């Protein structure tokens, strides 16, 4: 059980929850996630740990309501409890001084890249960040990212905030302007991560992506999360979730993410009718 000690609505669809989970808060490192389950009939879903407070024994997650489970979670209020939380899972991000690092967050991916960006800054990197969203209302953590970055670029698909366009446009601009990039970390929708990788591959810039396949246990037991990296099958929960983006089979990931589209619709309809 984890008790919700705070709840913030970042956008109508994106919620931040602060949870009491002292054991996990002590241990979690940037890039790791937890698996949560809501209710005795609930499914297990992975969510990245955005921040933690070891003293208070809390950690914070940011979730986008995209379906049944995330909507259930998002409807919980301060003082309520989450049935199960397990973690920290996955490998921590590799954090050291690479030189100049560009951290890219797309949509709710910004929440997942934030802890990694912060740690990379802490390790002495020059940090350039790019955050993007569909529009101004969906943009999250802009202030937090600005605070930790040497430079922050904001893009929106409709131009309602920052530059009009995609995060990849901003990245291409940085490259065109001659910025010498040592490493890119990109987290967001599969299409975005894949597009980023296509750009950086040409420039031979090492690029790390955090993959979000469907998971069940999150501990290597089921293989639901398998992804193909450099032609080999890997389990994202124990071998990742971060991988060398240039080696990832994004098409397969996208396809596997869609395995339960029909069921997701049924589950949502059921929730709406209740």
């Amino acid at each position, binding site marked *: 059980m984890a008790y919700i000690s705070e709840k913030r609505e970042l956008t109508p669809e994106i919620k931040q929850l602060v949870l009491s989970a002292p054991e996990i808060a002590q241990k979690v490192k940037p890039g790791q996630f937890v698996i949560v389950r809501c209710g005795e009939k*609930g499914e297990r879903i992975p969510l990245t740990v955005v921040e933690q407070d070891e003293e208070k024994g809390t950690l914070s997650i940011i979730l986008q309501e995209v379906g049944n489970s995330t909507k259930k979670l998002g409807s919980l209020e301060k003082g309520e409890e989450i049935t*199960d939380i*397990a973690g920290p899972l996955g490998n921590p991000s590799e954090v050291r001084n690479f030189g100049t690092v560009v951290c890219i967050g797309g949509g709710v991916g910004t929440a997942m890249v934030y802890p990694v960006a912060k740690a990379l800054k802490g390790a002495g990197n020059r940090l350039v960040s790019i955050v993007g969203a569909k529009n101004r209302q969906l943009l999250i953590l802009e202030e937090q990212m600005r605070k930790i970055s040497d430079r922050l670029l904001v893009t929106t698909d409709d131009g309602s905030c920052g530059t009009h366009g995609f995060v990849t446009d901003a990245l291409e601009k940085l490259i065109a302007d001659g910025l010498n990039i040592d490493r890119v970390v990109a987290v967001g929708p599969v299409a975005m991560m894949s597009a980023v990788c296509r750009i950086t591959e040409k420039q031979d810039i090492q690029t790390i992506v955090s993959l979000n396949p469907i998971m069940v246990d999150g501990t290597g037991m*089921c*293989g639901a999360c398998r992804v193909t990296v450099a032609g080999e099958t890997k389990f994202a929960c124990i071998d990742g979730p971060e991988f060398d983006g240039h080696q990832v089979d994004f098409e*397969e990931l996208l396809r596997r993410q869609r395995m339960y589209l029909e*069921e997701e619709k*049924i589950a949502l309809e059921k929730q709406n009718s209740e």
Partner: protein
Amino acid sequence: MTKDSGIPAAREPMSKQDTKLRVKNFDEVALGYSAHQAIKEASRCLQCEEPFCISGCPVNVDIPGFIELITEGDFEKAFYKIRETNGLPAICGRVCPQESQCEKLCVLGKRKEPVAIGRLERFVADYVLKKGTIKADDVAESNGQKVAIVGSGPAGLTTAWDLAKMGYKVTIFEGFHKPGGVLVYGIPEFRLPKAIVQQEIDSISRLGIQMKTNMVIGKVNTVDELLQNGFNAVFIGSGAGLPRFMHIPGENLNGVYSANEYLTRTNLMKAYLFPEYDTPIKSGPRVAVIGGGNVAMDSARTALRLGAEKVFNIYRRSRTEMPARVEEIENAQEEGIEFIFLSTPVRIIGDEEGWVKTIECVQMELGKPDRSGRRRPLPLLRSEYTIEVDTVIVAIGTDVNPIIPSTTTGLNRNQRGYIIASEATGQTSKQGVFAGGDIVTGSATVISAMGAGRKAALAIHKYLSDQRRKGR
């Protein structure tokens, strides 16, 4: 006149759910004995003076002892006789491979069918569970020492139970949200009802054992940290874990599952009750299950219950080499699973959207025996053929989950990655750390995991008693 004359040659049959009905539900298939049947079957026991059956049982249940109590109609006493050494009789009565253990050594079995020991065990356990009153076990006075158990499968539960009775303060750390290990996530409801598993786990954890779920050791705390943070000893019973794949083209297509995932979704997450439960499963009308063990049988039979019209079980050797229990193979056959022997998949082919469409197999022939003593299957040239399927379930075994081994210092492992531990004591290369069950032996059985747990509990007791003596 021999000792067994007058004893019926055949054991008392156990009724099963009708085949046509049972493939449409998840209710238990085998229905158990009535009291009358149990007494009748118990009377077949020769009450040997030197019973061999006991030595075939990894936890040495006093088999003739409990059977005699059944003949006297004292089912409760019979139950507590078993429980002297076995904390999970309702589970063992259902899933143990008695035919290769106690029943194999039954003297009656030389000329007639052996006594149905497993069915009798199940009967008395169910009798007491139904009444809902398992007496609390006697517990020794607390000795103040703490033991951490990693994993709540049969190995961990048994170690915890024994140690708690000896006066240790026991905490079980389980990674999943529910205790039981394979008993809850692997073995299906129709073979082992989860309510029964829960009842038996409750009867064990009642002894003041603290059950901490959602604790993935190696991630939230390492074994080293448990030892530093006040635990005097640690038992690792984390199971075998990591599903193996075939590494053939198409294995990551949509619709291909490991048996672990398929069964976990169904059993632990109750996907068969979707959308009442949130976890979905995609199981199509035509299903291929790869493998020949219990896990393959469970997957195939689960597929039927999830609505499959046709389930193929593809196995690379022949029926004789199948590692699954005979009873389970028979059940699968009765239910209409189609067995394809001497065949192995070489590739899975998908449709335009990336869903499984066909599986291509090659025929095999059996060559010389390999290291396991079974004849090695070899592919026959140009014997490829295809089968149309929507779902493929890979049940070809498991490897070691790296989380604990890779985060524990000084823990020696064998070539395959399993933890090396003494068979007699469970002692590992690391002081104060013991291990048993599938994480040591690789996939084995419930009862062998329990046997390892018992031995480890005794060894931990000895180790900690020595420490206490030295400390004083």
